[in-house]
């Protein structure tokens, strides 16, 4: 990772993703309030809309990046032994990746099945 990415880059990323997560959350809340899907078929249709799909995908990636920068910050602050920090970071990366794949899989499935 370049130096830029670990300092200013991470800081900008965290703020940019925070804005997107906030906007997406508000939009989602709006949809749920105005015309909430009432059954499974409607849910699927809604998610199958390419616009919703892309927005959700960006949302998933934003959550991943945001969580990575945030939790990495906490680990840098509090975990001193390098081996422990690296192990925890690896665990975090694995966990986030797993969640990311699982979350995007449902997006793909909804278009295939």
């Amino acid at each position, binding site marked *: 990772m370049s130096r830029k990415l670990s*300092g*200013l880059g991470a*800081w900008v990323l965290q703020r940019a993703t925070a804005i997107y997560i906030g906007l997406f959350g508000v939009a989602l809340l709006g949809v749920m309030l105005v015309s909430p899907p009432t059954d499974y078929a409607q849910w699927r249709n809604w998610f199958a809309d390419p616009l919703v799909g892309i927005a959700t995908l960006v949302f998933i990636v934003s959550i991943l990046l945001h969580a990575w920068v945030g939790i990495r*910050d906490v680990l*840098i602050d509090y975990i001193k032994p390098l081996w422990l920090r690296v192990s925890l970071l690896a665990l975090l990366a694995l966990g986030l990746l797993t969640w990311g794949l699982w979350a995007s899989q449902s997006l793909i499935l909804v278009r295939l099945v």
Partner: protein
Amino acid sequence: MKFAVSRFNPDTDSKPHMQTFEVAVERGMMLRDALLEIQRQDESFAFRHSCGEGVCGSDGMNVNGTNRLACITAVSDLKEPVEVRPFPGRPIIRDLVVDMSQFYQQYKAVEPWLVREDPMPEQEILQSPADRDKLDGLYECILCGCCSTACPSFWWNPDKFHGPQALLTAWRFLADSRDQATEHRLNELEGPYKLFRCHTIMNCVEVCPKGLNPTQAIGHIKHLMLRQGV
């Protein structure tokens, strides 16, 4: 008035303990005066102080849980018993005297001097009044250390994170129209530690006896970095 002060003698103690003193308070008495009175009662009691009017920045300490300068803290404003401890997070040398060398190292690391690429003019380097105004709220720092030793990020990484004081100084030179090392200064601040350990906790702003705002200075640095980066 009751004062509980932290005592630590490196030769005999394994950790600090509190000792209570009774001091007769006079009108207009400052905490520094009370500590001097305590010193008269027990001359082994050690604390740093010098100018006595909030200019030298020597008598920073933790009073009832807040970092402040003893010489400009009126005892009448304090809750009894007044608990006086050394700055948190710093190695204690004796009683209220702490080792501030990491704090000064961080100050030194931001190269707190003007850097000129152009040849030096015959006389002074001129600056417009508007440019000079940009240094207000920055140059007044007396390096007392109240801010950095109140900063959790500095507690956890005093060797790698510059801390609010040094970052305020970094911005003081970045903001100076006469300085020509902006690129270099910003490059030096890159990476996850030196600048970006700041999580805008703002303890620094709360405790600064000079009313300065290191958090705002740090924000200015980040935005300048951003502007230079894109």
